């Protein structure tokens, strides 16, 4: 695995100056790394540390706190089945058990072909559409066992690529700020004087 590519590094360098202090860009940069490789490699951690003038262990310390950052390679599709209270009441545990049987792995494991990682996850804020799951943080709601089977078949056959990008990609739309539109008040730490409106 690799450090950030030239393209990823360029993206990182557009993100860092948006924050008054560069360390605030740490979590966004970890997402850039995970989008590149599908997980956060030690080399990427070292590279991010260089970009933010931190030590690698400071980067790892933050990274390891957050459950979405994977410190080991995971499947192309990370399937998170919610079993929290609202889903528990409406078959979340049964859905997870079905997914385990269908994929042939226990929650927490990855299929041998590297296609799926299955997770037993906490509430994903889709409680009114229980039971539900996410694949790479895309929602599949009010899911029957048959629909889950069809979803896995489609993903395995590469049929839902438009809907579900590979693991690591969250938003497919990047915030872009044209330099002439950027005010820079916050980044420069300037006070905004009262009543400055003309």
């Amino acid at each position: 695995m690799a450090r950030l590519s030239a393209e990823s590094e360029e993206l990182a360098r557009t993100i860092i100056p948006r924050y008054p202090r560069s360390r605030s860009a740490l979590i966004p940069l970890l997402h850039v790394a995970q989008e590149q490789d599908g997980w956060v490699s030690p080399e990427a951690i070292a590279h991010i540390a260089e970009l933010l003038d931190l030590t690698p262990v400071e980067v790892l310390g933050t990274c390891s706190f957050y459950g979405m950052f994977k410190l080991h390679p995971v499947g192309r599709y990370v399937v998170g089945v919610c079993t929290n209270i609202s889903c528990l009441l409406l078959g979340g545990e049964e859905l997870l058990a079905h997914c385990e049987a269908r994929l042939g792995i226990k929650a927490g494991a990855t299929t041998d072909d590297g296609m799926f990682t299955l997770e037993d996850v906490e509430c994903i804020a889709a409680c009114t559409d229980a039971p539900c799951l996410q694949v790479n943080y895309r929602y599949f709601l009010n899911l029957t066992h048959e629909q889950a089977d069809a979803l896995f078949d489609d993903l395995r056959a590469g049929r839902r690529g438009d809907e579900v990008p590979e693991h690591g990609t969250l938003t497919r739309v990047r915030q872009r700020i044209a330099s002439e539109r950027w005010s820079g008040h916050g980044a420069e730490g300037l006070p905004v004087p009262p009543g400055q409106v003309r």
Partner: protein
Amino acid sequence: MAVSNAAPIISTRFAADDGHTLAGYEASRGYTALRKALGMGPDAVLEEVKAANLQGRGGAGFPAGAKWGFLPKDVFPRYFVVNGDESEPGTCKDRPLMEHDPHQLLEGLLISCFAVRAAQAFVYVRGEMALAQERLATALNEAYAAGYVGRDIMGSGWSIDVVLHWGAGAYIVGEETALIESLEGQRGMPRLKPPYFPAAKGLYLQPTVVNNVETLSNIPWIVLQGGAAFAALGTEKAAGTRLFALSGHVRRPGVYEVEMGTTTFRDLVEAPVYGGGIRHGNGLKAFIPGGASAPWLYPEQLDLALDASVVGPAGSMLGSGAVIVMDDTTCAVRAAWRLVKFFAHESCGKCTPCREGGAWLEKILRRIIDGHGREEDIELLLDVGDNISPGPFPHPPLDGQPGVPFPFKQTTICPLGPSTVSPIHSSILRFRDEYLIHIKEGGCRHD
């Protein structure tokens, strides 16, 4: 049955195909409130929001105007942070606001930044919400290009940048000081209080306002219609409308915008336009009125109004607006275990009572469910809970009914620890017999 006739305020674009686009938003009075606010000046906007008596919609219910009022005079720069880290189990009302109406949130944020003279704003979205991130990124790109955000907004001379930021999976980051730590690139652990509000010392130890997505989504309406019009909805202590996420064993789960104070839990659960009653004609066992942290309420409390000042004295809280309904087929022990497992998993580890106590509570409940429980486990659960959230248990009777200890006392920095104890108290108080069946017979009457 009193079902409110008040027109919705913040969910008007949920059903529209193009509500999330700038064109769709502008076609329905979008950004006219920002223009009006820029003409009013910051102090007049602040007064409107104070007059609206808009309580924070994140969970604590603190009035937004008062929160802004805590900013120390003449200390700059000030920052504004949107708390979009919605993760309280049962709660799913900020996500549709971000997915279906991102411009409404941005407009509310911009007006609020103008009112408090913020230097920069950050929209912190939950990491797991990819679509919300996409919709907000698109909306911000549109708004920057159209001159609603950034330098010299709408030719007014006022400028502010709004940066989209997202987390990476941690419930505790919903606590506002933990959110700030996370935004500073740190582990998301709550800060020691005092100071109690980030308004005093927040992001980079500068004055900072942290407001919930739903709270800010109300601001454009308040500016256009006036604070008094907002305060006229609902009751004196519970103004406006609010989104409630109704989940669990009802016929029609959903996110419903209802008038505060005048609507009751019974309306929400039973009215045909809302929950439509309990599924299969079953009986109600218990309901959680305000997200997983809230102590449970029971059938005789269905007629309480959706009003924090009513639910609080009844021994629970309106919290994050998540109503979770459990019918009489629900195993109380299993429900309590799952909630405790959540809090144990999400403990950040900073305070010992929560870190150690939560994990042990989960293990004890697990062994009861697995048929290895001991009779003394019930007292043990209460004793461990008492070290996280001191009792007495049960609470002195309220209206003749014993209640759980509320509001929480805590031996921890933030309320996550006491939230772990709340399902334990709630289930043992009413359903001790179910614990005993698990312990004595090694099984469950609901299996």
